[in-house]
């Protein structure tokens, strides 16, 4: 008689016949059975067969084997099959639990240096307490969704590396990103969820609130946050600042030149009087005749000559102070976005700002100042990492000499040549220009985060705008794997690609169903404060389903180069034939998204996936499965979306020409990079020519990479190979304090790192290049 059994963890427990009977009964029940006595009889047979084999203390596995045998021997084949399935499912759950614990163990005891998971997203410091906490949550959530939420075919496809469901840890929680209309948000003030903020009244509060808006929204979504109309939005803050400063300086003048006691009160009364009667006030451009009106009223207090002196003083000082205030506000904005945290402190908000087309003097000042603040760098001259700057290039506004913002475009090139930002977006690319309506900034293309683009709107064609909209979720296809499996059969490749596309369309819709059931109160800022389009029409307990339909569901891809290599032996940088096939593949994927859009009424779009964590994941799995294939799986990464491989020698113009047509196809977002050698500051013409060529070729969004190194000891920023060109030290080497003193880059107060700021850079800064 069996007395005990051995459990999986090695413990010995009392044998219980009813447990075996219950397991058999459950399997039978799944097939409609209801005879518990029969199950019990079968369980007795199982026990008997084990005893017969002389096993007095069987293991769980041995018992389960015996159950399977007994069921088959008694003609219960279907029940046996059900039991085997149940057993496999239990094994899977157990394995996943074990794997999760293993993952937790590595997160706990290994540093980011040793653990790739902790470096999955370079924007999160995996070595901090909150960074690790975030990872525990993220890894646990993923396992849970695989086991209990995802449809098995989607889970399987993801785990096998056929597709990649991005931001899976947020599957049941939120959506990707949003383009925040700060103009609308600030009007009347807003609530962060923790306190109400009044409508800001000067540029410094505008800049501070813009940071808070980005930070608050970052906690409601898992992707990046973008301001599509930074110059237009901030310009209002500059206007308010000027108005305030002009009045204050006029008052100072009145007090000084005319000996008036309540000068401030009188200056305000004059301003408000003109404002009520004529609807005008002091403006930065000084072009509305306000000063003439004001002069008449000032005659009551002083003569004509003094009036003119007073007004000139007020004007001069107000301009000077407004410029200073705006610069300081932009400096603080950039500093804040590089130091403030979101997500329990683990991550700096992923922020982007778009600007360059506002031709008002206030808007221009904002752009000039934010660029100059970026050029100057952070406290010790470091290159700011955030926000991502996107300069909107538009012919007629800032592209050619003589256009109102051409000086800003030149400045943008100079800053980018030093600091890697801004990137450049091109409103004139035909697929962007089709939405553009002059005088409507919300129709100017904007990009966010790495490259996301949301403007077309099949759900509501009257709202083809950027403001208040964003991506809901995206999933990428492992293109190279399909190509490897096709073994040169291009027709089969397209058939299999279609099957994967069907799967992705399905999975995105499934995820939308989860997102759509959320209530406004699940997104206190994004929806609660009306940031997302039309959410201001909803109450706190309303479902967000309808308003979410303004967002996009995107399918992405990586490794077009490896795909082509696998299919025809060449990538699109190597032959025109490969380029044509590449365009056919991506064109097909885009058509499938357009078809899905028409069929469902949702905005399905095609994304050139940024692939940070993914770039290594797919290729590792494929190398394991198919071996090391030359030009396909023999690198540590699959090539970014449709890019020409980073290791392939090609001229800048050729790369731009070849990649541009893919921008037109990837309506969910794209970016092209050019790697420049040497210091582009020494050849700004070449830098600008590259940007101009991007526009001519129809690139939508591009940027230029060049090395930006910095020696924190002497403060040198530029290219450093082995030896710092300024102080002559090698990495890790010490340099004498005397030498730093001679070089003029030593401050006693900064003895721990050597130096604060950069006198060389500062002395070379040219005066304000813009005229107003």
């Amino acid at each position, binding site marked *: 008689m069996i007395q005990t059994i051995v459990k999986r963890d090695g413990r010995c427990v009392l044998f219980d016949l009813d447990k075996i009977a219950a397991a058999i009964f459950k399997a039978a029940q799944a097939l409609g059975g209801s005879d518990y006595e029969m199950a019990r009889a079968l369980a007795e047979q199982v026990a008997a067969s084990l005893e017969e084999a002389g096993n007095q203390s069987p293991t769980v596995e041995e018992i389960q084997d015996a159950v399977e045998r007994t069921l088959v021997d008694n003609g219960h084949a279907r029940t046996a099959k059900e039991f085997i399935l149940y057993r496999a499912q239990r094994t899977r759950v157990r394995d996943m639990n074990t794997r999760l614990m293993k993952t937790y163990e590595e997160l706990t005891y290994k540093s980011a240096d040793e653990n790739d998971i902790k470096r999955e997203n370079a924007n999160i410091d995996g070595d901090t307490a909150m960074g690790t906490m975030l990872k525990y949550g993220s890894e646990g959530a993923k396992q849970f969704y695989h086991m209990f939420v995802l449809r098995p075919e989607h889970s399987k496809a993801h785990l096998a590396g056929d597709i990649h469901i991005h931001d899976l840890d947020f599957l049941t929680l939120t959506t990707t990103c949003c383009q925040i209309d700060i103009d609308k948000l600030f009007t009347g003030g807003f609530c962060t969820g923790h306190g109400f903020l009044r409508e800001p009244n000067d540029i410094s509060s505008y800049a501070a609130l813009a940071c808070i808006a980005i930070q608050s929204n970052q906690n409601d979504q898992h992707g990046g946050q973008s301001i599509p109309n930074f110059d237009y939005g901030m310009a209002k803050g500059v206007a308010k600042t000027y108005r305030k400063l002009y009045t204050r300086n006029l008052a100072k003048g009145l007090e000084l030149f005319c000996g008036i006691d309540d000068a401030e009160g009188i200056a305000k009364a004059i301003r408000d009087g003109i404002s009520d009667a004529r609807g005008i006030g002091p403006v930065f451009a000084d072009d509305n005749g306000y000063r003439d009106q004001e002069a008449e009223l000032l005659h009551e207090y002083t003569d004509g000559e003094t009036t003119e002196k007073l007004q000139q003083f007020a004007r001069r000082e107000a301009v000077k102070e407004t410029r200073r205030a705006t610069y300081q506000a932009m400096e603080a904005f950039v500093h804040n976005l590089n130091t403030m945290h979101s997500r329990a402190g683990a991550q700096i908000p992923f922020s982007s700002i778009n600007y360059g087309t506002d031709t008002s003097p206030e808007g221009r000042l904002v752009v000039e100042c934010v660029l100059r603040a970026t050029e100057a760098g952070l406290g010790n001259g470091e290159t700011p990492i955030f926000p991502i700057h996107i300069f909107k290039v538009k012919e007629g506004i800032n592209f050619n000499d003589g256009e109102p913002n051409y000086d800003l475009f030149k400045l943008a090139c100079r800053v980018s040549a030093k600091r890697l930002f801004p990137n450049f977006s091109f409103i004139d690319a035909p697929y962007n220009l089709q939405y553009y309506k002059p005088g409507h900034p919300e129709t100017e293309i904007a990009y966010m985060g790495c490259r996301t683009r949301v403007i077309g709107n099949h759900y509501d064609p009257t709202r083809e705008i950027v403001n208040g909209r964003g991506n809901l979720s995206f999933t990428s296809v492992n293109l190279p794997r399909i190509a490897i499996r096709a073994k040169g059969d291009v027709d089969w490749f397209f058939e299999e690609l279609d099957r994967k596309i069907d799967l992705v369309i399905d999975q995105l819709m499934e995820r939308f169903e989860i997102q759509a059931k959320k209530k406004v109160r699940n997104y206190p800022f994004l929806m609660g404060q009306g940031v997302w389009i039309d959410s201001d029409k909803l109450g706190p307990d309303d479902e967000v389903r309808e308003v979410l339909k303004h967002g996009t569901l995107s399918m992405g891809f990586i490794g077009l180069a490896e795909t082509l290599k696998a299919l025809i032996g060449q990538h699109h940088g190597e032959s025109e034939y490969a380029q044509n096939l590449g365009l056919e593949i991506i064109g097909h994927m885009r058509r499938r998204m357009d078809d899905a859009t028409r069929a469902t009424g949702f905005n399905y779009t095609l994304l050139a996936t940024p*692939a940070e964590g993914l770039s290594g994941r797919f290729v590792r799995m494929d190398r394991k499965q198919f071996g090391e294939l030359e030009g396909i799986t023999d690198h540590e990464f699959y090539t970014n979306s449709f890019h020409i491989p980073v290791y392939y020698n090609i001229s800048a113009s050729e790369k731009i020409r070849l990649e541009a047509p893919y921008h037109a196809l990837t309506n969910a977002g794209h970016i092209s990079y050019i790697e420049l050698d040497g210091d582009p500051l020494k050849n700004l013409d070449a830098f600008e020519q590259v940007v101009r060529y991007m526009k001519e070729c129809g690139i939508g969004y591009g940027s230029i990479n060049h090395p930006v190194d910095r020696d924190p000891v002497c403060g040198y920023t530029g290219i450093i190979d082995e030896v710092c060109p300024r102080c002559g030290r090698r990495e890790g080497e010490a340099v*004498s304090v005397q030498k730093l003193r001679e070089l003029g880059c030593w401050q006693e107060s900064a003895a721990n790192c050597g130096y604060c700021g950069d006198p060389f850079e500062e002395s070379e800064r040219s005066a304000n290049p813009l005229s107003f």
Partner: protein
Amino acid sequence: MVQINQDGVEMVGKGVGFERIRRITGYLVGTLDRFNDAKRAEVGERVKHTVSREVKL
């Protein structure tokens, strides 16, 4: 931190590396340490693109 070496000279910067800022997938990262393995490899393999006269517009 200032240290005095064996010759009695004040030295600074021992153990301090250079910062190398690079762009990955669209955003900047202050140091290569934060990159995952695949992206580190990609940065290592990047080649420069020449700008020739033909780009002149």
